[in-house]
């Protein structure tokens, strides 16, 4: 971003700054949501907004500001990788929050995990299977996903 930009360059730089400001506001909204919401899944809901949308806004801002093709290709890779990995951590944290009772049960509209019969015992044994810490005896010929 050169300080003596004129015409189209100045407009594009301004657009880039506004997009960065929007991304920063998304980060601020996520931080406020982290402080104000009550349980782990609600905070996760607030936290996953800037992970995807904020990053996209920042990457578009960088592309507009630099205007080079290899930068755009690199940022596309960054966005795709973030798309692939952001749901992983959210899924793991949300699952553990459910199993450990870190959620406000009164705020749930539907509890499909409980309706499906995923009790704590089942959850624990599945967990052990994934870690392979010598608890195969618990399965005892059962299938990996027991019929419910």
């Amino acid at each position, binding site marked *: *971003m*050169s300080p003596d930009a004129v015409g189209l360059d100045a407009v594009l730089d*301004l657009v*880039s*700054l*506004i997009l*960065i*400001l929007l*991304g*920063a*506001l998304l*980060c*601020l909204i*996520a*931080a*406020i949501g*982290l*402080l104000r919401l009550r349980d*782990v899944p609600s*905070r*996760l809901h607030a*936290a996953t907004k*800037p*992970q995807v949308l*904020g*990053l996209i806004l*920042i*990457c578009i*801002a*960088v592309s*507009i*500001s*630099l205007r*080079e093709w290899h*930068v755009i290709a*690199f*940022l596309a*890779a*960054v966005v795709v*990788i*973030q798309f692939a*990995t*952001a749901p*992983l*951590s*959210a899924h*793991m*944290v949300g*699952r*553990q*929050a459910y*199993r*450990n009772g*870190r959620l406000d049960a009164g705020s749930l509209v539907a509890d499909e995990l409980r309706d499906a019969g995923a009790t*704590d015992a089942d*959850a*624990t044994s599945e*967990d052990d299977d994934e*870690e392979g810490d010598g608890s195969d005896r618990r399965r005892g010929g059962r299938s990996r996903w027991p019929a419910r």
Partner: protein
Amino acid sequence: MNPLLIVILIVFGVAALLTIVRIVIGPSILDRAVASDVLLTEVICVLGAEMAINGHTRLLPVLLIIAAIGVFGSISVARFVAVKESRTP
């Protein structure tokens, strides 16, 4: 200095401070994991904003690496919680 730059600076700073407050006071380790994930995302956003404002491309590999391996922190914390807490009655 462009007033828009000052606003961006303040917004990023306040967001990081509020996230750190949640990391400090978070009642469970899962809250802290979620908050540190947000802090990592803010680091990515700040690095990208710095590149866009100053007009260089030196931080692109850092962005790629953080986006690729930043997820392992939350996943390993979630696995640790699975071992420690889900067996207590």
